[in-house]
Structure formats: C-alpha cells, structure tokens
C-alpha cells in the first residue's frame, strides 16, 4: 500500500474522480447543514453523545460483560476475537457449521476492516454484498472509498457500465437513471435474499442493559439480511456499546442527520437475541478487539473510539474531497481514517505513519463530528508518535532530532539562525525557495518554502534591545503574489 502522499498525488490528478467527489460531498454538506440547523439543541445532543461514549469507554469491561450476559439470556451466542484473523475464523466456522457456502452481507465497516470477504472466499464461501454501493464496489472489483457511500467515486454512468458488464441479469438497455440502477439491483438481489440461509451484518449500536442490537440503513437490504435467513452473524467492534435504550434517543437524532442529512434514515432495525417465529433461529455476535484496546490505552487517541461512523468528517474535509478515499489505504478514509487506522493497526507501516499528515488541520472535521472528536488534536498527537515510533521517515526524524538539539541550546539556535539567514542569499532570489536540496525537495515540489528572514527574531531582539532602539524592518522579498502556489485549498 503506498503512503498517503503518493496515493493522493495520483488521485488528485484524476479530474473525473475529483469531479465526482466534489459534486457528491458538496451536495451532502449543504443538506447536512440544513438538517442539523433544524434542531436548536444540536450542541446539547452532541455533548450528551460524547459523554455517553466516553462513559462507556471508561467502563468498557463492565459494559461488555453486561452485553454478553444479556445477549446470551435472549438466546444469542457471543464470541470474542482478539484480531481480524480470529474474527474471520469464527465467522467461517459458523458458516461451515450450517453446511452453506454462501452468505448475504449488510454493509459493515468491521468486516471490511477484517477482510472477511476475502477470508471467506479462501474457505470456499461466497459473500454477497447487498448494499447498493457495496454491490457497485464488489461488481467493479474495486475498493470502497467512503464510509457511508463506498462508491462515491463513481458517477451514474460509471455505475451503469459496471452493471452492464458484470451483472448477468442486468436489463437490456439499462439507462443511467438512478431509479433504473436501483431497480436493476433490486431484481439482481431479490432471489438471493429469498434463498439465503446465512447473513452477516455489522452493528451500529449494542445496548448493554438489554442485549439489543441496532442497525440503521436505507435500502431494506439490511432488513432482508437481518430477518429472512435462518442464521445471523453480527460482527461489532467492542466500542459500539451504549448503556441503555434511553441512549438511543441521542444517537438516533445525531446519526441520521450527520450522515445522510435526513431527519431519520428509512429503516432502523433492532433485535434482542432470537424472536421465535420471527427472523433468524440462530444468532451469533462476534466482539472484535483488533487494536481497539491499544487505542483505548492512548488517553488522547482514545476519543477516536467514540466514532459512530457517520462520515460527516469526510464530507467536510478539503483533503478528502480532493484525494478521495482510496488514497488513505484503509477501510476508514478521511479524517477519522487518519486517526483511527494508525491506532488500530499501529504505526508500523509507511501508510499508517503518513496518515496523521493527511490533513491541513483546518478543523472542519471537529466542527462536524456529532460526538465532538477533536480530530486535529489526535492528528497532532499521532504525528509526534509517528516521528518517535514510525517506520522510516529519515529526513523528518533527522530534522526533528536536529531541531531538538538546536532548540535546547541558545547558542546553537543563534548559530543556526545566522546560517539560515546567510543561506537565503544563495537560494532565495525572490524571497521564496523554489527547490529545497536532497530529500527535502518533496516539500518544495508542490510549493515554495519561505526563505528565512534576513535577521532572526533573536538577533534583532539582541541588537535593538527588544525594539527600543529600532522597530523591526518589514521583511523584504516577501511573496509578490505572482510567484509560487499556495498549499491551502481554494
């Protein structure tokens, strides 16, 4: 997986992708703002949502034990998985025990994180995605690029082409009208729903006090999967708990408005164990750790576990809007991906070490987040961790080490500043450095670096007694406005 800057460079160059993304995120941003503005107590809801989630995280052992007890009492079976491989193993074994070789799936971030579909395929089990966007991704042999709308990078004509090519029962002369495309998906999947014996789902919320599981969706594919098959296997991250039913009054207001900008999503299903005569006879809940306990251990980074996967932070992010979801190299793209992926996977790879930098720190994500995750704060925190523990950012690490060494000694700092001021005469004829030497040129490839000032602040302070003898001269050779591109979005 390439690190973010490399993947993003390619994506940004794809004008069609940028067009699709800008259109889709622009649409949803406006609608979301209106849906949120309609509730004058939004800030109070957001605060409660945050506190409920923090309370659960602070008492996670208590609530997990309670959830397990209640689900079991209601006739479900609870399984625990330390990591992705263990979760996939559990699901594959459960499917095999039914004698089936097919499962229908409701969109689930947790199983994308574990790579469940690929793991099942290796065991000879076919997994059929039933969410429209997931179906588009699956048929297009593609990867999801958005939490809520995994095929956001595709426009309607792309989708029509994929259906015509990959869907054997696609109607003759299929148009790119969204209603026709939805109809084609309906017909394609109906027989599967009616014959499937096993379904796999994710979980939006798990109510510890009652053992109730909650799934929010739009299309009805979720209801099909949760209701028609005989066996239901749900996979959830251990952080998805809320203490009681009452807490849903907060999250059922926060989530739909933040995600699809609706007052309520079309369908929300809840179930508590098994309900004889209605729905699956056999229910299994897989509780997934997969790096979440490591995330919990980081007191700053822990807040990422409050995430309810609404995707509002993606839709408002200037970096996401231009780079798209694939560049993040993780099932969780955008701002939340930039803080969640490196934490649950560990900062062991180039891609994970680069993710905390995939942001301009503009703060729009924090503003939009319905559970008030301070994403910029976590990004900065993780940047520090990436420098300490990251795989290899030799230039940066060397620079940081040198900076630390320089800054610790006033004499060394003064010397460094004199050297920098001297160097500007060589490299910055117009006050901008067009190209930094060596590996640092990655920085100047797409922007100019400002030249160091003619005189450092420290030198000026010493020479003029803190400005008492001479006001500080305006810097010469500053940007004349014709030269150099800016790094910030337009």
């Amino acid at each position, binding site marked *: 997986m390439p690190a973010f800057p490399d993947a993003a460079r390619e994506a940004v160059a794809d004008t069609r992708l940028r067009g699709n993304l800008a259109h889709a995120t622009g649409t949803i941003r406006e609608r979301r703002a209106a849906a949120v503005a309609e509730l004058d107590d939004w800030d109070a809801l957001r605060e409660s949502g945050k506190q409920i989630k923090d309370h659960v995280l602070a008492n996670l052992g208590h609530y997990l034990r309670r959830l397990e007890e209640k689900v079991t009492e209601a006739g479900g079976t609870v399984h625990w998985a330390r990591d992705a491989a263990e979760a996939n193993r559990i699901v594959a074994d459960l499917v095999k025990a039914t004698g089936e070789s097919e499962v229908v799936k409701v969109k689930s971030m947790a199983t994308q994180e574990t790579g469940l579909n690929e793991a099942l395929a290796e065991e000879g089990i076919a997994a059929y995605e039933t969410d429209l966007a997931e179906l588009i991704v699956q048929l297009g042999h593609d990867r999801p690029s958005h939490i809520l709308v995994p095929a956001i990078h595709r426009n309607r004509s792309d989708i029509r082409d994929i259906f015509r090519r990959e869907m054997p029962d696609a109607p003759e002369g299929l148009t790119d009208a969204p209603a026709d495309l939805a109809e084609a998906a309906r017909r394609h999947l109906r027989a599967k729903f009616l014959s499937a014996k096993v379904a796999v789902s994710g979980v939006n919320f798990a109510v510890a006090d009652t053992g109730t599981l909650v799934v929010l969706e739009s299309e009805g594919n979720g209801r099909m999967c949760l209701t028609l098959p005989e066996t239901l296997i749900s996979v959830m991250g*251990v952080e998805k708990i809320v203490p009681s039913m*009452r807490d849903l009054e907060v999250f059922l207001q926060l989530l739909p408005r933040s995600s699809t900008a609706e007052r309520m999503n079309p369908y929300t299903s809840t179930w508590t164990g098994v309900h004889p005569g209605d729905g699956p006879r056999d229910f299994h809940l897989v509780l997934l*750790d997969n790096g979440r306990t490591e995330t919990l251990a980081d007191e700053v980074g822990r807040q990422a576990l409050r995430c309810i996967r609404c995707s509002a932070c993606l839709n408002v992010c200037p970096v996401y809007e231009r780079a798209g979801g694939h560049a993040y190299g993780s099932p969780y793209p955008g701002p939340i991906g930039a803080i969640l992926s490196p934490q649950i996977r560990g900062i062991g790879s180039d891609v994970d070490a680069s993710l905390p930098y995939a942001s301009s720190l503009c703060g729009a994500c924090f503003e939009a987040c319905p559970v008030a995750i301070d994403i910029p704060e976590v990004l900065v925190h993780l940047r520090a961790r990436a420098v300490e523990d990251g795989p290899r950012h030799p230039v940066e690490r060397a620079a940081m080490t040198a900076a630390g060494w320089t800054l610790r000694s006033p004499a060394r700092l003064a010397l460094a500043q004199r050297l920098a001021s001297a160097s500007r005469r060589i490299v910055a004829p117009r006050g901008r450095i067009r190209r930094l030497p060596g590996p640092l040129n990655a920085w100047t490839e797409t922007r100019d670096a400002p030249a160091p000032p003619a005189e450092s602040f420290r030198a000026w302070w010493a020479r003029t007694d803190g400005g008492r003898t001479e006001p500080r001269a305006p810097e010469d050779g500053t940007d004349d406005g014709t030269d150099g591109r800016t790094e910030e979005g337009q």
Partner: protein
Amino acid sequence: MSAREEILRRIDGIVPARPAADVAADYARIDRDYARRHHADGVLDLFADRVAHYRATVLRAAEAELPRVVAERLAARPGTHGAPGDLPDAWLAEVTSGLVRDPAVADLDGLAGAVTGCAAAIAETGTIVLDHGPGQGTRALSLVPDYHLIIVRAAQVAPDVPEALERLDPSRPLTMVSGPSATSDIELSRVEGVHGPRTLEVVIAE
C-alpha cells in the same frame, strides 16, 4: 488464555473495572440538556407533513371511515394483499380484493402488498415504529411485498424521538420506518426504492 479473558484483561488493565453502583452513579451524571421534544403542539399535522416529506402518501380519516379508506387503497393495487391474522376485522370489513391473513414467508414475494398497524410513531422525524406485536405481523410481512399500507392511530403518535422510545419495549424486535425504501448511494442524492417496499402509504385514524 481465551480471547474473552485476554481482551477483558487488557481492558481492565487500562480502565479498571469498578463496582456496578459507581458505574451507575456516573451514568446518571451524564448531561442531558437536549430537548425532550422540538415542537409544542400540532403533533398530528407535523407527523403527516414529515411522513409526506419522504414521498410517502399520507391520508387522514376518522375512525369510522377507516374501513372504506383501507378498501380503496388496496383496490387501487390489484392482486392479493397480506395482513396479520390479528389485524382488527373491522378495519378490513369493506375490502373486496384478495386478502390473505398471516401469509407464509414463501408466498410474500407474490403479494401485491401488505397492510399492518404499528406500535408507535414519531412526529418530528416522520417515523413509524413496528414492534411486530398485535396487528403488525412478522418482520418479513411488511418487508418483502412492494407496497406497505400502515394504519396509525392518532394516540400512537409521539411528538419526538425520546418519548417514542419510552413507549417501546426493547425486548421486541423493532422496525422503524421513515418513508419508502431509499438509497443515497448514487452521487449522494436520495432515490426512492431499492429492496424494501417502494410505495409506502400511511392512514392516520383520528
């Protein structure tokens, strides 16, 4: 060590387990300064308006007119309709089209539609909640057929989300319906109609 023990051991090492009473006391201290409801009155009008906003058809009828309205709606969609065995007979008294009570799951895909009652409704969000108790049938009945007619009694309409949840029994399976099946997956614009009923009609019995 089992996965269960190991995960709980890790968690207890980070956020040590505390007595249940302390956890409950902390839980009770969570700030809940949000509104219990967003609209003071006009609840039924609000509900009708919000349901219609999702492009569902909303009709209002006096209790006495209900049998006629139900019969008309079903007659407009020729074919056999499914209904829960315990849906009040009076509601279906004037239906002349084909009607089957408690159809088998295997027969659902052949039905023209389904008619059910509900457990509660939420005005603010235009949501109808089924708990699949009396008059509502199984979850499959109101899912597989392409048309769903729901009868909502005026007293079942709660003004907002918190009050509606208080009225519901979490041990029941719940289905919350806000408009017909829809998707936002194509260019993030809402399109009605994917796998659930593509036509939703709601009769408010006053």
